[in-house]
Every structure is written in C-alpha cells, then in structure tokens.
C-alpha cells in the first residue's frame, strides 16, 4: 500500500474501461491440445495460474539466466527446463512458476516480448506443470516448431529437422 492511495470505498471502487485494459496479462488464443479436461477447466486453471510457459529460447540459455531475468518480476518458485525427449538436452522452452500470480502477471506485462540471449522470448499462461510436459512433442524429440521450420536458427540446432533430413 502506498501512503496517499488508501483503501477501497464507494468512490474508489469505480474505475474506467480504458484504465482496466491489461492485454499483456490476458489469455492468448493458444490452448494446449494435450490438456486433460474440458476447455472450461483449462481456462479456469489458466486464469488462476502462477506458471508461465516461455518459448523461443536458445538451446544454450541456462536455468540461471532464466532465473535472473524472470526474477525481476518477483520471487520464483521453480524453473523447469524443457528437454528434448530423446537427447534429454535443452530444446528451447521452459516453465517458470512464481509463488504469487501477480508476479507472473508482471512477467507477462514486462518480460514477454523482450530479449534473452539476444532472442525475443515469448511467455504465455500455463495450466500447471505435470510430469511429462517438460519434453518436446516433435517427432524427433524437440519442439514441434523445430520439426518443420525452413529457416536456419543457430540457437536452435540450425535448420528444422525435416530440412536436416533431406
């Protein structure tokens, strides 16, 4: 609480739509297709979650770097690195769980869309970590996006897997 901006009352309960806008912290369009449960359950969990999915990481980005960056919006409970299912090495995503949802919201507002290891990273709400979700779901073991992409990305193993196999 800041002195001078006191508690709730009749007048302070009112706010304006223009000021309520919080688009960075809203749910995105993405829904995990592997989620076990109804769409409604999933969205309820997403709205209560303190866990973020973080994507477009370099394969070389470490847990320590993620901790440093995401620690700027609050105390981190846990970082779970995403792994290639076959190689068990980092494959460019992770989960960051905070103790408080408000801290995760600030990460969505101020860390999403900024750079880590020179790459623009993307954060999104996650319904909660479950064992097995730390693995890539692509056929080759990494993330799906690295299966099919055509471009060369030095931080993500070079060319996409399909291209590499040609």
């Amino acid at each position, binding site marked *: 609480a800041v002195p001078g901006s006191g508690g709730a009352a009749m007048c302070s309960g009112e706010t304006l739509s223009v000021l309520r806008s919080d688009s960075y912290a809203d749910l995105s369009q993405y829904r995990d297709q592997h989620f076990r449960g109804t769409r409604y359950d999933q969205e309820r969990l997403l709205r209560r979650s303190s866990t973020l999915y973080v994507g477009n990481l370099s394969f070389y980005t470490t847990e320590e770097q993620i901790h440093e960056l995401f620690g700027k919006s609050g105390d981190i409970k846990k970082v779970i690195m995403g792994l290639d299912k076959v190689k068990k090495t980092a494959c460019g995503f992770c989960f960051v769980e905070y103790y408080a949802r408000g801290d995760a919201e600030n990460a969505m507002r*101020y860390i999403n869309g900024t750079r880590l290891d020179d790459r623009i990273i993307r954060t999104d709400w996650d319904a909660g970590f479950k064992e097995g979700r730390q693995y890539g779901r692509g056929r080759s073991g990494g993330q799906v996006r690295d299966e099919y992409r055509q471009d060369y990305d030095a931080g993500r193993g070079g060319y996409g897997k399909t291209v590499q196999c040609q």
Partner: protein
Amino acid sequence: MSRRRHSDDSDAGQPHKRRRTSEPSEIEERLESLICRVGEKSNSSLESNLEGLAGVLEADLPNYKSKILRILCTVARLLPEKLTVYTTLVGLLNARNYNFGGEFVEAMIRQLKECLKVNMYNEAVHLVRFLSDLVNCHVIAAPSMVAMFENFVSVTQEEDVPQVRCDWYMFAFLSSLPWVGKELYEKKDAEMDRLLSQTESYLKRRQKIHVPMLQVWTADKPHPQEEYLDCLWSQIQKLKKDRWQERHILRPYLAFDSILCEALQHNLPPFTPPPHTEDSVYPMPRVIFRMFDYTDDPEGPVMPGSHSVERFVIEENLHCIIKSHWKERKTCAAQLLSYPGNNKIPLNYHIVEVIFAELFQLPSPPHIEVMYTTLLIELCKLQPGSLPQVLAQATEMLYMRLDTMNTTCVDRFINWFSHHLSNFQFRWSWEDWSDCLTQDLEKPKPKFVREVLEKCMRLSYHQRIIDIVPASFSVLSPANPVCIYKYGDESNRSLPGYTVALCLTIAVKNKASNDEIFSILKDVPNPNQDDDDDEGFTFNPLKIEVFVQTLLHLAAKSFSHSFSALAKFHEVFKTLAESDEGKLHVLRVVYDVWKNHPQMIAVLVDKMIRTQIVDCAAVANWIFSSELAHDFTRFYIWEILHSTIRKMNKHVLKIHKELEEAKARLARQHKRRDSDDDDDDDDRSSDREDGPLEEQIERLQEKVESAQSEQKNLFLVIFQRFIMLLTEHLVRCETSGIDVFTPWYKSCIERLQQIFLQHHQIIQQYMVTLENLLFTAELDHHILAVFQQFCALQA
C-alpha cells in the same frame, strides 16, 4: 479492445456466456466510451468533438443522469492528464443545463470528502484541481473557490497535527494555481495575496529534516534536488511575477468563451477539511528529481526552467499518463509521445527525466522497476531516430554523477542499465568510461561498472562479458562463476575430513539415504570438543564443512541440481544446523564454496530459509559477520538481506491472514447458529462445533505472535549490527584523525537508510522500541540523524 470483463469468469459453469446484456449496462458502456475517448482518432477538432458530445449527453440526461454524473466524477479523479478537456465538457453541459452543473459540483464535493476519508490523497488532488479549473469554465464562482482554498490554508494553523497533513492541503492549493491562479487573482487579489503570504510563512517554518533521506544526489550541482513544496512555491512565485500568464496548458474552454460566459455559476458549498484521525495516512514528502536543463538539448526547443510553472505541468501530466497506462506498455509509450506541445518542448528529454524520476524515487518507485526498462525500450522502438540518443546522454550523465548518487538509486541504475544492455547486444562505448580504471575499486564509478558487468553476466554468460569489454576493463570483469571445492584435489588429502568427503561423494553418487549420510558423518571428529559427543549432534563445524562442501560440489551443475540436493538431504541439513552457530556455519560454507557465483549464493540462501534450514536472523548475522566484511558493499549482499526481510514480512502477513480468515469463519458460524436458533439451546453441541475452530484460532494467534516477535527481532538484530559497525568506524576515524566520509562509510550509512525506507511501514510499528533501546541520545549524531530523518517522514 476486449470487451470481456474478468468478472465474467466467476459465472460458474457458464464459461462463455456473456453477462446477460440488459440495455442499461450497454448504454453505460457506450457513454463511458464516448466520454473517455472524446477527441481521439477524429478528423474533426477537439472543440467540435466536445460540442457534439455535449449535445449527446444533454439529450441523455433525462434518462441517464446519474450514470453520466458518475462517469464524469470518475474521469475527473482518474484521468487528470485530460483535465481541461473534461472541465470544458462540464462547462458546456452546465451552460445547457444549470441544474446538472449544480448536481455535478455536489457529487464532486461528496467524492472529495470520501477520498479524504479513506486516505486517497493523490486522487483528491486531481479532484481539487478539476474543481478549480471549473472556475475557468464558469461552472464555479471564483470567490467560493477562494473560500475553499482559505479553508485549506487554515489547516496549517491546526495544532498537534502531523506536518504531512498541512503539507497536503498546501499542495492541493498551490498545485491548482497553474490552472486557475489568473482567474482567482483577477477576482480576489487581496484574498489571494493573503493566502500566498500565509503560504510563505508556513513554508518557512515547516521542518525539512527528511529531505536528505529522499534526495537522489547529495550534491546541489548541477541541479539542486529540491523539496517538492519548496520547488512548487518557487514556481508559483515566478508565475505570479509573470502576472499569472501561463501558456502551456491546453485550454479548450477558451474556444467556447462566448457560450460559457453566458452560463450561470454555482457556489461551492463551504468545505471543512475532515479532521485528522489516528487512521489518517498522508502522502510522504518528495524531492523533485532534475537531471536536464535547457543546455542539454542545444539544437531543439528550449526546456522550460526548473522554476517555471510549465515544467511543473508537463511533469505532472507525464506522471499521470504513466499512472493511467502502466499495465499497457505500448499504449503508455504512445500516449507519452503524443503529449501535446511536441515541437515547443524537448519532449523526449522530459519523458526520460520523468521516467528516471520514478525509477529513482525514494523510498520506492511508484511501479515495479522492470516496467520502466520495458517502457524505455518501447519508447526507443517508437522513436528510433531520437530517443536512444537522449537515453545514452542520460546514462552518461548519471555515470558522471555517481560519486554523489544515493546507494539505493545506484542499485536501480545498475539493474536498469544491465537489463537494458541485454536487449541491445550489450553494445556500449565502454572506453568512454576508462577514467574509472585508474580509481580505487571501492569508488562509486569502478564499483558501478563492476556491478553492471556482473549483472550483465547473469543475463548471459562469462565469456560474453569478456568479449564485450575492452581488454583494459578486465580488472572490473566478474569472476568466472565456478564452485570452489576444498576437498577436490589429491593435494588436499591432508585436510581434516578429506577421507569422509570422499566417502560422502561415493555414497551420494550411489543414492544414499539420510541415515547412511548420518552414519558416515559420525566419524568426523569435532575440533571444538575434547571428547566426542556420541549422543547428539552438537555444533560440529567440521561435520558441516565436509557435508555442505561435498554436497554443493556434487550438485554444482545447476540451480535445480542444488535444490534437489537440499531437498533430498533436508534432514541432515536440519540436524547439522539445529543451533544458531550451526546455521551460521552452514551459511559460511555456502559462501566459501560459491563466492565466485553470488547468484547461486542468493538462491541457496532463499531456499534454505524457505525450507527452514536457516532462519532470517541467522542470515542477518552472517551478513554482518567479519567473514563477509570484504563483500559487505557488494550489491548481491543487500539483495539477499532485503529479500530475507521481505520473506519475513510476507510470512507474518500470511499467518495474519490465516488468523483473520479463521476468525471470520467462526463469526459466520456463530451468526448461522444465532439465525436458525431453535428452542433447543444445547450449549454443549455449540461448544463442540466451536471447539476445533477455536483451537485453531488459538494456535494461529500464537503463531502470529511468534512470527511478529521473530520479525521484530530481525530488525533489531540488523539495526544493532549497523550501529556497532558504524560506531566502530566513527571512533576509529576520530582517534586517528581521518575523515569519516570514506566510500565505505557513505555506502554503509546509506544502506542503513535503505532499511528504514524500504520497510518503513513495518518499522513504524517498532518506533518506541527503536527510540528507547537503540537510537538513543547517546548515539553518535551521524547515526542518530538517519533515525531522525526517518521519523520526520510521517511527522
């Protein structure tokens, strides 16, 4: 714009059903949207938009008057950056409908009283300013506004009230004058002169002990860091000297003068400031942050001087824009850059100055620090040809003035600059800062560069930092964050405990249990004792050393590995660290192993507190211990200490909340029982119902008391250690006749200030104890001054 309201989600079982849209709420949304967005994205002028809107609202008055009143009152309170747009609107409505004007004024007064009652002083200022600008719109009669201000200023005559209360009423009066000074002076010059002279005498006699604690720089050059009321007073005096000519504020109502001056005005009802109560919490005083003046942008438009009222208005409005849009960084950046007057003022400089003013604000920034980093990046994206240069210029200036910058502000500068660089490939002209290489490493400039490089490394990796700085800067580069394992080399085999360390290593690799670890550790002799203590595990520093060194070394690969190790062998840790000395020693060993990797030390300490291997007091004692003296002024130490205090504070709040919830449950239970009260008044059954809940409440009450006592103890330990350390230094300086003001001393005394400032709300509870026990009159005046400055903040 999403029209979904988050409250929709509480409709259980009906996730996608929109709130049943009744006509009224749709209309209200439309009205609110019309009002809030007037003038935006329109080809017509603001004036014609306002005229159109006034017509629409006038037509809606018969059916939606109360909604319109509510929206306008809210807009007055929450959109102060568009103040004159809405006073013009109200003026037009009043001209068309006198009664509505009267009702609006009454609603505003009601809202003002409510705000003051619930300590919403910042918003109350906006309301006062709005009312005063309504004088310009012929809605409120000037004499009645002057009368209100007379009541405000007379608060300074009240006895036995905190100075911050009088300050607020004075601020509300003075800060409205840029808008309405001219009109009030024209109508009531004698009264205004009297008010201004009362103001002057109040400002002369009020105490300003708090000022040094809130200044970003201790030096007055190149720009004095003025107390906010002093600065505002200078600005108003200058305005008066300029015969109240004010040319910066956009005043749409001027275009409607012929309509508005036909309108009948209302008199403000007499306004008595609500009395001071125990629950009143007034805003803290501020110091005005200034880093630029007209010499900094010689090519562009002239920057209004520090005592010009234009400067005040621009800064107020820019701060308000940030306050309105802090959650939406792109909108915020766009709104800042579209602030009117772009070609008459060096807007980029104002924006950068206002943002740094907030970032460096003491005690705390209004918003989370990382917001400012990202906002500046958005601004650079929108103005790539001009803003980055201003930012670079600002950075250079801040670097040049590091010698007199408050340590807490330096922390924030370090965090901001390193994070900013990490978004721009760490590109910086480090050679420009070669002057710091010839200075003592403890001096502010080299210290700053070292800390920045360390933070840059945390966001990347060691070799990257070596690559980005010139070779000459290697003396300031961070250490390679590797673990130091004392039992690692064969050459160490003569060290006591070496063989046990080897044993442990093998055991852990073979997935040993806690019990197996205990039995291996039994063989470790205790250097503190002559006889071995077979029974229990009394404090055995060698056992702790061997165990902690070995385990941390095995788990050195990553944070997760180390956390797993702490979790797996939690039992061993708890037992070894049972005593206070044990806790302290565990922390010492953690430091020995990881002194090259401060980030690892911080996360391990955090984990150990959360899993209760060590407690907060142990961490505080460790930080002030002689082993850490060498690192005492390093940033990471203070990050650890403040994080520790925050954990303690959150813990107390959490238990308190649990207690309140349990009490509320009990109250509900009683209420339910009372309401369905039968003739059957079986006391025993109600007791049985209450029993477990009452027990829980009792347990929680004890928990709260013990947590609060632990919290109080933590602060006492910290303050005591500070006093000891500082007194030692002062005595030593006095006896050897050297100057007290070493870099170490400046850092240390400002760290003490930082404790007070960052946790001021909690510490307020302990004022009496602190005054009687620690900060007594016998204390050296250097140290006592810090306490007195703190007391002055809410006095």
